[in-house]
């Protein structure tokens, strides 16, 4: 009997891989545990072992072939005397049956974990310096750090696995090689300690970029972020500022469950003394990170793991920046306003397309970009035009960024509202592991559509 060797998923967010090298050839006999291939993922190159035994009957991809979907057969092993029979389809994920529970939404099944679709953004396309080449968010972040490190040797980066490993998510790739170990520092797994150290270095005049492997681990260090970094300028009567960027992935990745899938946007946005940024595209990631690194205050820079692979054009001018505190009107519209940020921008854009097609609703989308200080002017002007507002974000509902926006809008634009403001958030529970429940937990396009229908009084 022959067995197929499938393209393995080597990380929670991997959907495809590149076959960098075969370690076996046709006719070889392999045993379980033998190395068979080197696969390059979005994060690293890894060796893959055989699980079954037999003779290599066929290699289905050549070395160097790229973007092979996870679970696609890449080789066949078995008894050389048997006839090869290749199965037709290998769905990327099994379709999962879900019951409607708690959240009153129409669930739909999707067959990809990483379903981020980005459509062209009119504002970005107006940029005359736009690159013809598209790069990933990961590269955009990396390039900006490198550019700023070249300009100012007071800028350095520290964090877990940022140097020799090249970044747990490859965001710091190549920085060690260019800037050396004095400016790219691997830390031990002691967030509280190295965060305090970086804050002290910033007090003394350096400009640290501190990478949290994920913002979930920033809770170990939150005392230093809030009590030391955010408050010392005030407590010192304006003497001691703290020019530091805390960055890393925030929010849900893919099936990493409760302790590794938390959104901290409203936590940090509550703190005077901090600035909070959440980029949504490679373009604004570049402009906003540059502003963050140049800012004399502590900045929380909330990235998103699923967006790291998102490609788009950027402005390659090494002085291009997007001001902190300014929202971007991603799409103009007249019927209702969606205020969103980070990964939910892409979901909101998808929802807007369907709202137009299915209900003829013309949606205005505001991408906040900065959460603190909040660009209330842009939000209010939009609401005054559309008279309807929904907020879309990944955080828990209680006291979220959307809660504050709802408060501001009812206070300052009450007479303009034709409907209550509706918030779309994650479910008010810890993040579950199971894929079916994870989808229910996170805001989906259908949730946004339902909220839009509700503010538009469409049944």
């Amino acid at each position, binding site marked *: 009997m022959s067995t197929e060797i499938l393209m393995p998923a080597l990380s929670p967010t991997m959907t495809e891989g590149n076959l960098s090298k075969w370690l076996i050839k046709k006719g070889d006999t392999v045993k379980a545990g033998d190395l068979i291939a080197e696969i390059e993922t979005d994060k690293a190159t890894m060796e893959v072992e055989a699980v079954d035994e037999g003779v290599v009957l066929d290699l289905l991809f050549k070395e160097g072939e790229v973007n092979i979907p996870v679970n696609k057969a890449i080789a066949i092993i078995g008894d050389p005397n048997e006839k090869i029979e290749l199965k037709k389809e290998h769905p990327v994920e099994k379709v999962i049956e879900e019951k409607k529970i708690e959240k009153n939404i129409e669930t739909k099944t999707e067959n990809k974990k990483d379903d981020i679709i980005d459509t062209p953004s009119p504002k970005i396309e107006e940029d005359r310096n736009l690159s013809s080449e598209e790069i990933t968010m990961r590269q955009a972040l990396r390039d900006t750090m490198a550019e700023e490190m070249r300009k100012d040797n007071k800028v*350095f980066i520290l964090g877990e696995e940022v140097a020799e490993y090249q970044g747990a998510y490859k965001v710091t790739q190549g920085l060690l090689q260019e800037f050396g170990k*004095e400016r790219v*520092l691997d*830390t*031990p797994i*002691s967030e*509280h*300690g*190295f*965060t*305090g*150290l*970086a*804050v*002290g*270095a*910033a*007090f*003394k*005049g*350096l400009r640290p970029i501190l990478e949290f492997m994920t913002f979930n681990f920033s809770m170990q260090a939150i*005392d*230093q972020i809030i*009590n*030391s970094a955010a408050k*010392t*300028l*005030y*407590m*010192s*009567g*304006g*003497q*001691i*500022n703290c020019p530091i960027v805390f960055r890393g992935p925030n929010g849900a990745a893919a099936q990493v469950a409760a302790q590794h899938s938390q959104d901290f946007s409203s936590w940090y946005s509550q703190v*005077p*003394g901090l*600035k909070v940024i959440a980029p949504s595209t490679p373009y604004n990631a570049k402009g906003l990170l540059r502003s963050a690194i140049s800012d*004399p*205050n502590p900045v929380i820079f909330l990235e998103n793991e699923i967006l790291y692979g998102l490609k788009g054009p950027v402005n390659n001018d090494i002085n291009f920046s997007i001001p902190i505190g300014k929202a971007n009107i991603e799409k103009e519209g007249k019927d209702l306003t969606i205020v969103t940020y980070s990964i939910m921008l892409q979901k909101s854009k998808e929802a807007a397309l369907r709202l137009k097609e299915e209900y003829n609703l013309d949606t205005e989308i505001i991408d906040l970009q900065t959460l603190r200080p909040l660009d209330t002017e842009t939000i209010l002007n939009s609401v005054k035009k559309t008279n309807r507002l929904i907020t879309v974000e990944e955080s828990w509902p209680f006291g979220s960024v959307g809660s504050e926006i709802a408060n501001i809008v009812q206070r300052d634009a009450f007479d303009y509202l034709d409907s209550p403001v509706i918030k779309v958030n994650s479910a008010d529970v810890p993040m579950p592991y199971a894929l079916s429940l994870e989808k229910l937990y996170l805001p989906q396009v259908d949730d946004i559509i339902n909220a839009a229908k509700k503010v538009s009084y469409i049944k």
Partner: protein
Amino acid sequence: MKKLQKADYIKMYSFMLKIRRFEERAAQLYGMGKIGGFCHLYIGQEAVVVGILMTIDKNDSVVTTYRDHGHMIARGLDPKRIMAELTGREDGYSAGKGGSMHMFSKENNFYGGHGIVGAQVPIGTGIAFTHKYNGEKNICRTYIGDGAMNNGQVFEAFNLAALWKLPVLYIIENNKYGMGTSVDRAAAGLDLYKRGEAFGIPGEKVDGMNIFSVIEAADKAGKYVREGNGPYIIEVQTYRYRGHSMSDPAKYRTKEELDNYKQTDPIEIVKSEILKKKIATNDEIEKINKDTLEEIKNAAEFATNSPFPKGSELYTDVYL
């Protein structure tokens, strides 16, 4: 050890006395309701900071705990402005926004004044990191209370300092009590300086009531750190005469224990040494005493007459 000059003895005596008179006056103002909130006095511990400061360079940095008034005075900062911070006035070092526990002077490399137990330890380690990063020969003195020695981030900082050979001198001011809990009820293993051993950080224990012992240890430790060998820990055995803060009656210790320490009063030790060595006469000492009292009285008067911060200051200094 550093050879002490006659002027050094006078300097030590004057600074220690100034700290004590300042703290006594602060206690009085607190009792009068002129100082609010938490107020932690340094009386009894004067030999520690003054002794350490006899050995340092003016470009060295320092970071300490919330028991910081004495540290600022020893650093040569103006008692008027320190007291004005305690009274929450606009002439205070933090313009009235920090208070007793949160005072800073960037121009004097004094980085606080930290209210969270243990938080200053990674921060001081980071300031030392900066000295090294910038290729400066300076060190950062990081003070730690005995209570903080059971706080996790302290050990994270020790590990980083040893790993990266940072020029940081850790000074544990062991005054026997973390608030009302004696060290032996809080720490497993009473030699706190040995807690660096696991990281390869050398350390020693010193009598903190005797300034000459403190100077000797600080001199040796300072050289070690300045030469690029990495961190060093000095545990200074000291004692606070007053409670943890103004509201603490200190019922957890006996009067005999307190009286016993007062027998080895750090200021008296210096004074008798000055007289014994005939560095100054009794009359000259009396003049220092009188001048110090006067200076602190003036500081109190300044601090109670300085204006309160204007309402418009509420929203300044949040961002630069």
